[in-house]
């Protein structure tokens, strides 16, 4: 790895760090209840809740830290936090 003296290489290079390993609880999205409002995506501090082609939302579990904001804010209670078996 070449040491660039003043800077870091590549914008967004933190993607190498998979913070999904931090989780104890994981959010489970129930599309049957979902109204496609997008609030889960807006308020995810990691920016890893993504809109699917069909308009519903899913988290990127490689990075999701399991903070639970999406579940807490969902107006339809379509997201529940489940203890992840490891």
């Amino acid at each position, binding site marked *: 790895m070449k*040491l*660039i*003296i*003043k*800077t*870091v*290489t590549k*914008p967004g290079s933190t993607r190498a760090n998979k913070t999904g390993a931090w989780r104890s609880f994981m959010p489970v999205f129930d599309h049957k209840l979902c109204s496609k409002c997008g609030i889960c995506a807006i308020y995810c501090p990691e920016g890893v809740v993504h809109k699917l082609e069909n308009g519903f939302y899913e988290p990127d579990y490689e990075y999701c830290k399991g903070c639970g904001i999406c579940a807490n804010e969902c107006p339809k209670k379509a997201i529940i936090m489940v203890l992840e078996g490891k």
Partner: protein
Amino acid sequence: MRNRMVVVEGSFAVAHAVKVSRPHVISAYPITPQTHIVEDLAQFAADGEMNCEYMNVESEFSAISALIGASAAGARTYSSTTSQGLALMHEALFNASGMRLPIIMTVVNRALSAPINIWNDQQDSISQRDTGWIQLYAEDVQESADTIPQLYKIAEDPDILLPAMTCMDGFILSHVYEPVILLEQSLTDEFLPRYSPEIVLDPKNPMSFGAFADPSTYTEFRYKQEKAMAVALNRIEEVANEFNDVYGRYYGGLIDGYLLDDAEIVIMAMGSVIGTIKDAIDELRSEGESIGLLKVRSFRPFPADAIKKAIKNAKVVITLDKNISIGKNEGALCTEVKACLYNTDFRVPVIGFMIGFGGRDIPISMIRNLVTKAKLVEKGIFVESEIVDLREDLA
């Protein structure tokens, strides 16, 4: 038009040198005795003589911080300060060097408070010698001005990329009127290429400057700074010669000598006192003394090899320091010269005199006294290091 001398204030000559070096951004905060430099630059800007942004700020800390941002954005930058202002910048000096930003600054050497004192000594810049800035000390006004484009060339070298300060003694050089040659724009354009850094703050190529380096990566950054200083050691000599080729003037690269080759007594010093020492040496030589001068121009990087070579015939070495490390009872030049000799088998007594604090004048007679004192070493009387020229009624 070449070699046309004019009589101007030292500060004006320096401001003019900055102007012809074509900086993009100047930011500074006024403090005696630097004020005339920044005032002259402000006038140049107000008269449209510089294609440069001149930014007044609310403190020296903000001045150097603004230049850190400007330099990272790709600008050639300049500031000037002294004493309290330089001390206030202390944190940012490390930061600028660690971020490898080739900011150039004139330090108009002045004593540090407390007690408050506006006159010359070199405590201010010496106290910053660990910050990773190149430091060159000027002997006279011409050199103070000429060093500016030299430092840009050295600092902006892609293998160096370190900030650099040129040190000129406050009032003695900043406020004196001397005949000088004002640097010609055409020659400076020939000598100094444009500043075009490879990596800058640019939305088209986003990069992050100033990362957080934990124990696994921090050391290598320091190592690289030190390596850059080693490159600077050679480059300072080269650039001094390149300057001579274009302008026809040379004051030494890392060091310079005056009647040094056969000298048994060698006086070492930095800055304007060099001129006085040369006059003292002329007098003493005419009286049969075997005495010479070793001028240290570059203090950082420290030219250990050049110094060792230069004093190899000396029987006694005198160092003059306009600074002190309180608690060590020694000035920095003395300490570092002794240190670089220690592991060699060349043994010469090095006697340290600390003098000229807070602007106390150093006349030729004082230099002669110090030489007499130093010669007592032959009789076995050896004082390693002391503050001299003390007032009995106050000490």
